[in-house]
């Protein structure tokens, strides 16, 4: 990972610098107008969040059943990055909704389930921070439940009646439903997912150093 860290930083920086220009050049959508351009970083932030959720859920499961401390480091990194990118999605959606729906927030199934999922991952981090000794296991179990809600949040717009655009908008866009918008969206999505990967890498490093410090303190106290 160390070998790819700096090239990854450069790629993410390039993508984030080029994204605004490409998004500005992308066509304006017919019914929502300019505000639809929030889509180019709203959806990628959810994609980054789902990447982090996947890492967090798998690592939490591993930590719960094998007690692997490295898996615990990945679980906490995944949970933090999930909360970060979830917050980006939850803030950008009302900004989009204010123009598209006329209100900042609707208790729509997608928005509500996404908010609940965000709260589960915040709960996971709070349990870990304030739960005392052994709270890592409880946090891992909470994260597993958070991970289990993710598919429902994603498919909610297809299952229930909602004002939120369906999941098909992304594949349709990539197929060319709005010529000129596929590339900016794809680059933005790659940029966000790589940014989430970078953040998780840094957070895993921090968690491992914290574990090392705790072990050294214990050894020092015992000597």
């Amino acid at each position, binding site marked *: 990972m160390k070998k790819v860290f700096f090239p990854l930083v450069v790629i993410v920086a390039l993508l984030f610098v080029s994204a*605004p220009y490409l998004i500005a050049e992308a*066509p*304006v*959508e*017919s*019914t*929502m*107008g*300019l*505000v*639809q*351009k*929030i*889509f180019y*970083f*709203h959806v990628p*932030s959810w994609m980054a969040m789902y990447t982090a959720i996947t890492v967090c859920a798998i690592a939490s499961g591993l930590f719960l059943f094998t007690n692997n401390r490295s898996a615990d480091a990945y679980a906490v990194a995944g949970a*933090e990055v999930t909360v*970060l990118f979830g*917050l*980006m999605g939850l*803030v*950008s959606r009302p*900004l*989009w909704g*204010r*123009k598209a729906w006329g209100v900042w927030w609707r208790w729509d199934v997608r928005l509500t389930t996404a908010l609940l999922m965000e709260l589960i991952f915040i709960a996971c981090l709070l349990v870990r921070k304030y739960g005392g000794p052994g709270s890592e296991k409880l946090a891992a179990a909470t994260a597993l439940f958070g991970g289990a809600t993710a598919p429902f949040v994603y498919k909610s*717009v297809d299952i229930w*009646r*909602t*004002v*939120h*655009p*369906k999941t*098909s*908008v992304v594949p*349709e*866009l990539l197929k060319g*439903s*709005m*010529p*000129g*918008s596929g590339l900016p969206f794809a680059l933005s999505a790659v940029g966000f997912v790589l*940014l989430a990967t970078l*953040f998780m890498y*840094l*957070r895993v*490093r*921090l968690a491992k*150093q*914290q574990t*090392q*410090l705790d072990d*050294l*303190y214990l050894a*020092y106290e015992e*000597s």
Partner: protein
Amino acid sequence: MKTIIAFVCSLMLAGPAVAFQPPPSAAQSEYVPATPGTSTEQMPAAPLVVAAYAFVWVAAMAYLWTIARRLNKVDDDLRALERKTASGSR
């Protein structure tokens, strides 16, 4: 028996409620580009777009800053402990 009656009554009440749901609203399944030259804006959208993008940047930078701060703190603690251990072993 009461449970069975209650269950049947619930089913009878729930049946029409499910059957007479209004047809699904026309949620968008794809985006269509606007015809060039036609105005679709009634309230300014640019501040909302800029605010959303700015929030994404600020949140990402703030998180990066917290990680850097925590990494520095752990590094300092590690160094302090190493010094303590070295002076204790002498």
